[in-house]
């Protein structure tokens, strides 16, 4: 019998998920999730998951109530169910909040965008196996006997059977009382992939541009995290100079100044060379900029890119965000390179709505 409600509940949850999926683009492009980073579960408001009926609106509505108060006194803007007609029988149309894990959202995103499941180059995913003593067992070697638990168990038994004498508090464990420490084997998958996110935070990048970059980066990050366990991430921001920052800073920083993309590239190659030997690591680079680079810097950039970054990267993505000052030249340069290197992908993000397309451009290739 309870199976019936289970069935209906599952069906309901399925529909909720469907709604989430249907509105995915909205959730993805609005950047509301960014603040929720770090928590595994996000709650998402899902409207309209009710059966519509003809109902009265507020206008002209009213009813009868009970209690103190002068004529004209406000009873609040809330949504009182007018009068007694519907008292208790109907919960009204709520906006439901559903909890969805980020991983689930990422999977949905993947399905919606038809992103391929990524197979890391070289398939060098190692699983390390480790034993953890985190459970107990009825059998085991004496060396693993759990004294405290054993005596507790014995005490419990003696009290329960009335053998315990508080005046002569002797506790003698029997064979059945003995408890042993036990272990479970946990595998710690060690995926050796690193993502390096690069963001241009120069003056020409307005708040909206940075927001777009962060949102795009967030979802790329979420998707890749669902694909790789134990993914490593590095964050680089640059204006005329580049800095490696932590995740939190990356998603919050405000900077301004000129733009020298080569500074970021130098930083990237330094990070790769010093910490992520290419033999062991899948390396992904996502760079976002408005493309407004110092003119004489482009050659330096391309040189580092071609000689140091692209040869070692699985994928290099360049996303150019249009800014109020127009779109920079840099995109064209990278596109030239893309003709030579097949691990280069570019995307032009016109506005917030472009985030969706950008994710598809970047990850759809599955490199």
């Amino acid at each position: 019998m309870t199976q019936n409600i289970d069935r209906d509940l599952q069906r309901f949850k399925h529909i909720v998920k469907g709604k989430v999926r249907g509105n995915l683009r909205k959730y993805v492009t609005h950047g509301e999730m960014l603040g929720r980073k770090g928590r595994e579960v996000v709650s998402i408001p899902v409207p309209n998951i009710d059966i519509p009926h003809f109902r009265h609106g507020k206008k002209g509505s009213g009813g009868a109530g009970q209690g103190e108060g002068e004529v004209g006194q406000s009873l609040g803007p809330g949504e009182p169910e007018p009068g007694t007609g519907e008292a208790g029988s109907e919960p009204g149309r709520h906006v439901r909040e559903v909890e969805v894990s980020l991983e689930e959202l990422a999977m949905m995103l993947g399905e919606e965008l038809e992103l391929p499941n990524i197979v890391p180059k070289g398939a060098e995913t190692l699983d390390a196996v480790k034993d953890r003593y985190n459970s107990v067992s009825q059998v085991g070697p004496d060396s693993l006997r759990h004294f405290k638990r054993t005596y507790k168990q014995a005490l419990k038994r003696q009290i329960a059977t009335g053998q315990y004498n508080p005046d002569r508090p002797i506790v003698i464990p029997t064979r059945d009382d003995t408890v042993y420490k036990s272990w479970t084997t946990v595998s710690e998958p060690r995926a050796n992939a690193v993502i390096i996110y690069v963001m241009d935070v120069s003056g020409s990048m307005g708040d909206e541009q940075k927001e777009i970059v962060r949102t795009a980066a967030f979802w790329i990050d979420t998707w890749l995290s669902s694909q790789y366990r134990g993914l490593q991430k590095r964050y680089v921001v640059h204006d005329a100079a580049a800095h490696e920052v932590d995740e939190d800073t990356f998603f919050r920083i405000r900077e301004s100044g000129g733009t020298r993309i080569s500074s970021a590239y130098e930083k990237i190659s330094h990070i790769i060379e010093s910490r992520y030997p290419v033999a062991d690591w899948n390396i992904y680079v996502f760079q976002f900029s408005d493309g407004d680079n110092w003119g004489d810097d482009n050659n330096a950039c391309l040189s580092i890119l071609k000689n140091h970054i692209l040869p070692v990267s699985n994928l290099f993505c360049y996303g150019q965000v249009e800014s109020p000052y127009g779109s920079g030249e840099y995109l064209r340069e990278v596109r030239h390179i893309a003709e030579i290197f097949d691990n280069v992908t570019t995307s032009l993000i016109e506005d917030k709505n472009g985030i969706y397309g950008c994710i598809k451009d970047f990850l759809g290739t599955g490199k």
Partner: protein
Amino acid sequence: MTISTYRPLPAEIRAIQDEMEAIAASYGLDFYETIFEMLDYEELSMFAAYGGFPIRYPHWRFGAEFDELMKGYSYGLQKIYEMVINTDPCYAYLLSCNSITDQKLVIAHVYGHCDFFKNNAWFAPTNRRMLDQMANHAARINRYIDKYGHETVEEFIDACLSIDDLIDPYAPHIVRAEAKERTSAIRGDETLQAPERKFQAKEYMDSYINPPEVIAKEQHAHQQLLERQQVNRSFPNRPERDVLQFLINHAQLREWQRDVLSIIRDEAYYFAPQGQTKIMNEGWASYWHSTIMTGHGLTDAEVIDYADHHSGTMATSPTRLNPYKLGIELFRDIEERWNKGQFGPEWDACDDAHERERWDKQLGLGREKIFEVRRIHNDITFIDTFLTEDFCRRHKLFSFAYNDENKTYEIESREFEEVKKHLLKNLTNFGRPVIRVMDGNYLNRGDLYLQHQYEGNELKIDYAEDTLSNIQKIWGRCVYLETVVDDIQCLLTFDGHEHQRAPLIKN
């Protein structure tokens, strides 16, 4: 059919049941056999989600309801104490974690409901074998699911549920002579002879009761109506409130869809009297749990628990009249007035406050009167007949209205007439808009024309449009709804693709 998980009651509760049943019967309460079951909260929530029935057809809305009940419970926002369903025998469910005092109270309360179900006239046409019926509905819908697919059937149920309140709650009590003539107009085989509508009267009174000129006028009007219908081939002959029945009869549906729609309609009619008698039913049950508990049931140790629970049930909030509270107080008021003889012309004529205060003819008719009231009234006639000015003042009732400028609800009046008017208005048609089918062949092209009976309260437009979409799904052709939006008479239209709203120009 028996409920499959039936578990016998613990002896302790069984003893309380026997005791309460005997006390209830000694007061003259009259009920079908009542079977109690103890459930944990999850099970109780499941029953509640299913409207009290162990077997319902599959639908996500039950899951949604269950989810909400469980969440409300786990966040400590709400708690169901008891459920009872209108069947013969009556089934009632107790919450296993309740205290003994609560169980007593609930059992006494349940006997009030059971008596009400059996004796109130508005429940008379309901199916007392609804357990079987619900299971039967479930079997039929499951069969359709197997045959046509889950999504297809569910989608259609969604559309049907969207209009499950477009019924005529009075229909089960009316035998309509012209039930068969519904489609005759469209076939065009009806003679244009208007029926002679005369009331029965003694011959010498006939010209007064059936004035010839009025009869002639009516016949003429009817003649014209028929002629017009003949030209337009429109139907029904008169506005139809039972929209579900109309759709069952005339919509372009496949057989299984027609059957699903009729299942939804059956269940809607089954539950309708509970909506029509909420105040009375809860008031009556509360009256009896209170009478029984304070008179018999309580031990000294239980008084505080009882008082706490009882007062919780009776709590009021400004914008929502508590049906338990309003009901029990009205029953008590009626009992007192009929005990003291505070009714009739003499009482009404007395305007001396002092005298009214002391008025006691010691008639002792109170108990008898409330039994009569519980038999024949529904909430509307209950309030209309027994809500008095004194009562309104004593219980601080007021009317409130939405202030469009301030976007808040405000206390509008404490005048008796106003309060009563608002109360009755909110009880009429369960406080929901009345929608009627005006024409099933609108513009002579099979479109469906509906009319919202506007009484100063506008529809929520987004809901209305969504609902209209669902009706269109069922009807199969364009649907229209006449209503008022922003004080202007409007026609909402949905043709299956887009919604339109245009001011209505009547010719």
